[in-house]
């Protein structure tokens, strides 16, 4: 099984640790991982701003870089959702559709494809799990609190394999953090208020770390935590599952 590693642009530039952990974790689980060097961005920032018609370049690059792999795995729910829903190529629609169907967010890849049953990781800390919206409601990584339906959580399932970890409860289990792409600056006041409220929920329940599948949400919450001079840190779930005890 050959997996192409798809690293979101802001993870590549600002949070390489999450990308390194993703790669190492997959390799530990026996997967051959390749990182196509010429990848850039999935195009979501433009598409969500109403400029989907400008994403042709990103789409072509993505297909070129990733079409050869059995699976494409990314440490991000929102980027994967965007590719799944919007990757297209008028010149070769079939190929685009095939490539899109092979893209997986990391935790769902571990649970649904690799069928991981245990991990040799240890993280002796109180951790709050932030349910990033696109991963949860778009990719169904976990059950949505609005629905009358059985509970489940793929990231939660994996985190529970980590030794000595203590997952804290939250008052609002899946409210949006307010990042929302360009929303974070276009509607700065509401975005920050949403982020502050999310952070407060974690702090009230004693979190030492806030984790999740999307670095964008975590980056937004980290910005708020740092401004508050809080000791609480954010960490991508890949780094916990990969066995990083400290950052």
């Amino acid at each position, binding site marked *: 099984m050959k997996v192409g590693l798809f690293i979101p642009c802001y993870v*590549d530039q*600002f949070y390489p640790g999450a990308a390194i952990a993703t790669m190492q974790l997959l390799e530990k689980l026996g997967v051959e991982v390749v990182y196509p060097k010429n990848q850039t961005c999935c195009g979501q920032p433009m598409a969500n701003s109403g400029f989907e018609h400008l994403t042709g*370049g990103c789409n072509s690059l993505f297909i070129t870089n990733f079409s050869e792999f059995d699976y494409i795995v990314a440490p991000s729910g929102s980027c994967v959702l965007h590719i799944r829903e919007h990757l297209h190529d008028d010149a070769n629609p079939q190929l685009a559709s095939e490539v899109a169907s092979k893209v997986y967010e990391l935790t769902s890849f571990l649970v649904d494809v690799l069928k991981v049953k245990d991990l040799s990781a240890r993280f002796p800390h109180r951790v709050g799990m932030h349910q990033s919206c696109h991963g949860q409601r778009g990719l169904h990584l976990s059950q949505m609190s609005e*629905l009358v339906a059985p509970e489940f959580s793929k990231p939660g399932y994996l985190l529970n394999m980590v030794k000595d970890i203590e997952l804290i409860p939250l008052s609002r289990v899946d409210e949006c953090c307010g990042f929302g792409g360009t929303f*974070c600056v276009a509607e700065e006041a509401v975005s920050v208020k949403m982020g502050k409220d999310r952070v407060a929920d974690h702090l009230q329940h004693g979190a030492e770390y806030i984790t999740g599948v999307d670095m964008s949400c975590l980056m937004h919450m980290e910005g708020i935590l740092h401004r508050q001079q809080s000791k609480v840190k954010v960490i991508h779930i890949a780094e916990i599952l990969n066995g990083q005890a400290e950052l």
Partner: protein
Amino acid sequence: MMMKTEAEHAELAQDFNKDEERVNWHDETLWWLRQKRDRIAHQIPEWEQLRETASTIKGNVLSNLSAYLTQFEEKAIANGVTVHWAADGAEHNNIVLEILKSHGVTRMVKSKSMLTEECHLNEFLEQQGLEVIDSDLGERIVQLAKEAPSHIVLPCIHKKKEEIGELFHQYLGTPEGNADPQFLTETARQHLREVFLTRKAALTGVNFAIAETGEFVVCTNEGNADMGAHLADVHIASMGIEKIIPERKHLGVFLRLLTRSATGQPITTYSSHFMKPNPGKEMHIVIVDNGRSVQLGRADFRNSLKCIRCGACMNTCPVYRRSGGHSYHTAIAGPIGSILAPNLDMKEYADLPFASTLCGSCSNVCPVKIDIHTQLYKWRQMIVQNGYTTTTKKTGMKIMNTVLSSPGAYRLGGKAGRAVLKYAPFMVNNKLNPWYKQRDMPNPPKESFGEWYSKNKGEGKDKA
């Protein structure tokens, strides 16, 4: 009582957020309603099936609407009801005026109708020298305050009881400083009872219009629609064309979903079925289009017409809760408003589909399963394609596209960005950077993942 302003959602929301404690209060009140909705929905094991059924029924309605409308009209007329048709808000208002004038009525009592908000009926009638009193308590309060309702089900959810007490002191003579909800409600009861007993004309909205029988249903907790309608000589009911449901038995589905979704109650106190006028009295229905037939023709957006006006999307929306209904500067706010309004005026409401993080919670609580967040995304594309975006944004996006379509430019750009953050942070850590206002920028790592990979793995595949 003008709702339309030049300001856009972001600006109005920023204003709303100046008082953080008030935002918390507004947010917690609406979140509590979302929780009540969750609690009661979980008591119905077949809840998700009910939603699917309601959505499919409404899908059938939209696909057969012209036939259902004529069937409804035929049955209503046979029941002795007079049916009018209005192409837009102005025509609706004129029809109502004519009915009132023909009966020599100068004072009318009204129960909640968001359609009449859309048509600006009150303003119009007042300009013609008529008096309109809103009888729903929340609506009466915003009427006294000369504001528009901020929520389609809870019109004055944005008002604190002290503010309401002050309004009642000013207009209804209650003691200054009295903010007791029980006392204020009793005052309103007495004040409005006099109105009900004396008004010869009453206007109500319509929650559901049954094609099979020509009857329509009006749901209230207060009983104000019934008090007005049964005591008046003339009952006018205003409805949008999309209020149709095919058969009476379908009410079983919709009445089970509506109030549970709206407030977490199992049903409204009153679900009144109006079929024929009272002997000796008149009943009129005004069927209004006002842009709905255009929306019906938009394949991506027509499902927004399934809406049964429950407000659940507003209660769950993290943005609505923290910006308030007035920041949407339109009659119907929140997520559903943001996919209905651009159809009415794409320029005026171009900001609304962007007042969202596309979290998707709204679509999950919608009792008729409207794909609200998907439509928000699609409206964004439509709005930009139609040119309702700024030159700055267009240019910015074109640059972003150029950089992101070229691996070389991307790597260079990323490196430059990190360098600026490391060596000249003051260039971004300032007032010009909206991110920086209340958040720190991320710490720049010494190398990107791509750079680390080249150094440590070296066999990255080159493809371009």
